[in-house]
Structures are given as C-alpha cells and as structure tokens.
C-alpha cells in the first residue's frame, strides 16, 4: 500500500466551556453545510472517521467532530483530579452551543449517537432555531439502568475492558469484525470513570420522556436513524419519539448501536438520503 494522508484535519481548540478553560480536540473535513457530530458515551470522535473520509458527504458538508472534554484527545479541565466526572443535560446542551458558537457555525446540522442521539432531542426541545436540521442516531426518550454502572469504575476491574465488554453486544451480529473491534477499541481507551459519568446523563438525568410532546419537528427538521439490533436505545423508543414529535424515523437493517463506526458503509447508505433532503430543502427555502 502506498502511504497516504486522509483529508481530515485535526486541531486543538482552546475555549472557555461551562465557565472553565478547556482544550478540545476537533477534526473536520469537507466544505459546505456544517455537520456537527456527537460521539457516544465513553468513546470519542474517531467513531465518525467513515464520514470524514467519504467524499459523497464532504463535497457538500463540512463535517466537524469534537472529542467531548474528558474524552479522546480532549483534556479534562484543570483540577479534574479533585472531582468526579458526571455529565448532565444542562452542561451537555451548553457545551454543544458554546462549541458551535466558538467555531462560528451558522445554524449547523447537528447529529449525535446514543447520548448524542438523546441530547439532540434536548436541543430540538430547547433550541430548535439554532439548527438547520437535527439527526438523532439511536435516539430514545430514556433508558432504564439494566446493569450496575459501578462496575465501570473500580480499581479491581479494568475499566476499558469492562466498558468494551458491556457495549460489545450492542454491535450488530452482522457487523464486519474490523468495525466491531475498532468500535470496542475506542471504549477500551476511555479514561477511568468517563463512561460511567456519561451514563449518568444517559440513564438518569437525560430522560426526556415528559418533554417529547413539546418538540415539534416542523420548527426544526428532525430525522431519526436507529439500528435494528440496538437493545439499549430500542427501535420502539425511536418510534415513540417519532410519533410524539413528527420526526422522520428509519430503522436501519443490519446495524446496531454504533452505526457510524461498526459498519460505516452500510450506515452512510442510510445517511446520504437524509443529508440530501436537508440540502435540497435548504436550496428550496433559499429560492
């Protein structure tokens, strides 16, 4: 194989986030409509490398992926050693808005998976005017705990191994081995307690069941894409969101909880028509 660089550029962004100085790792590729991508709990932006490398997307979209604080190559804020990381709905919404503003994005499309697929529902509820469209991957109104998350952060259990073990079953059985194990590798590299801290939002604080009826997909187009094998964010949960918000929902065959990383090619086949519809609607509105 001859050596080659991928088109994505990675940089470190310094900004004040949630009232504290932060250093965030941000990757982007492409040009056009900004598409801000949100990774899953306990993972990082590498999950979206399939999109960053797909010209069918990057010819019309500026794909932007950031590692949340504490995740991937983003640092935790100074003083982290004296606190327990715990993600809340309020902080997560603020984080996305502040990063979007720092990058001077003009009404981006925001797309998130799992915790990202949940927080985009909060964005649709609280800030629909700030986004051109919203895409929820593996979105559900809530997920009740089905295991004790304290196993994810204790000194006598390897946090990375157990996190990967917990999520391994969420990958579709039909996923290619390379996508499956790369997805799990990201979990194995997560910082101590970070997955558990994200799950506080996912399983407790981020429940949006009682606000769904106040989301109106006519205010901001809302698209939901969920893998048929996802038993965490279930297809039933996604269809409930669609029914109560007017969102357009698609159940994706042969995909699980991590569509963009477990099987990028299959996922992009579902994503392209959505992105095309958003782009076409934008043109029609401008005409």
């Amino acid at each position: 194989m001859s050596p080659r660089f991928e088109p994505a550029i990675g940089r470190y962004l310094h900004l004040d986030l949630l009232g504290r100085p932060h250093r965030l790792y941000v990757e982007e590729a492409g040009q056009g409509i900004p598409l801000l991508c949100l990774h899953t709990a306990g993972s990082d932006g590498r999950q979206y490398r399939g999109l960053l490398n797909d010209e069918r997307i990057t010819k019309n979209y500026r794909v932007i992926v950031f590692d949340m604080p504490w995740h991937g190559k983003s640092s935790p804020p100074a003083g982290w050693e004296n606190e327990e990381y715990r993600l809340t709905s309020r902080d997560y919404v603020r984080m996305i808005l502040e990063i979007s503003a720092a990058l001077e994005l003009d009404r981006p499309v925001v797309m998130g998976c799992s915790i990202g697929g949940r927080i985009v529902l909060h964005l649709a509820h609280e800030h629909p005017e700030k986004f051109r469209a919203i895409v929820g991957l593996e979105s559900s109104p809530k997920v009740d705990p089905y295991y004790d998350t304290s196993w994810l952060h204790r000194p006598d259990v390897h946090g990375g191994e157990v996190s990967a073990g917990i999520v391994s079953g969420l990958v579709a059985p039909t996923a290619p081995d390379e996508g499956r194990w790369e997805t799990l590798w990201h979990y194995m590299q997560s910082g101590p307690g970070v997955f558990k801290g994200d799950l506080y939002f996912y399983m407790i604080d981020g429940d949006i069941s009682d606000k769904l009826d106040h989301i109106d997909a006519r205010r901001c187009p809302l698209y939901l894409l969920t893998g048929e094998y996802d038993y965490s964010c279930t297809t039933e949960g996604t269809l409930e969101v669609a029914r109560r918000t007017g969102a357009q929902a698609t159940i994706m065959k042969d995909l699980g909880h991590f569509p963009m990383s477990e099987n990028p090619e299959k996922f992009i086949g579902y994503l392209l028509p959505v992105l095309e519809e958003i782009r076409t609607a934008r043109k029609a509105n401008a005409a």
Partner: protein
Amino acid sequence: MLDHLAARVNGDANLVRRGKHVTTTFLIAIDNADHLVSVAEGRITAIRPGPFITPNYSFALRASRDSWEKLWSPTPLPGFTDVFALVKKKLLRIEGDLHPFMSNLLYFKGVLAAGKAAA
C-alpha cells in the same frame, strides 16, 4: 445444549488467551437444569450436569431454554443477541459474585458465543 462448549472454547487459542487469568466455577441454568462449568486459566476443565445439593460456584446465569436457544441461534433476532439484551428483557438473571464475570466480561461473552448452534 452445552455438549460442544468445552471443545469450542479450548480450541480457540485467542479466547483461552483472553481468559488466562480466569480460574473459577460458574453455573449455567437452562430452565431448572443446573450445570457447573469449571474454568482453569481460560480452559474449560469440566462441565457437570446437576442436580446438585450444595452447588459451589462464583456466579450463575439463569434463563429458560427458550431464551438460551434464542441467544444461541446462528442468526439471533434483534433483542436476543447478547446476555445483557436478555437481562434487560428480564429473561436472564446474573447472580452471585459477579466479579469474575465482570472483570473478564469479553472472555465470558466469548465463552457464551461458543455455545451458539452451528450455522
């Protein structure tokens, strides 16, 4: 249902390597039929069918035959692809001292995957 489990696990060098720190006995219950599975350094050394008067094990995985068959189908249906999928549906219980299970979760998932029926 567990006829070929030991041979499949012990014949998978990568799985045995992943479990090299696992030495324990755990219990698999299929309906009311208990089986004690003994593991030494990642290799299954014995699978003993019950009934037992005083079974001695670290943790137990209990589910109906129907649930195990769905999990072990060559092409499991959505919702039946993983032990935690069954736990979430309250079709499988994990009991006892979970430390060996959780601290070697990928290994034990590999062991359970070895229980799949041949496609």
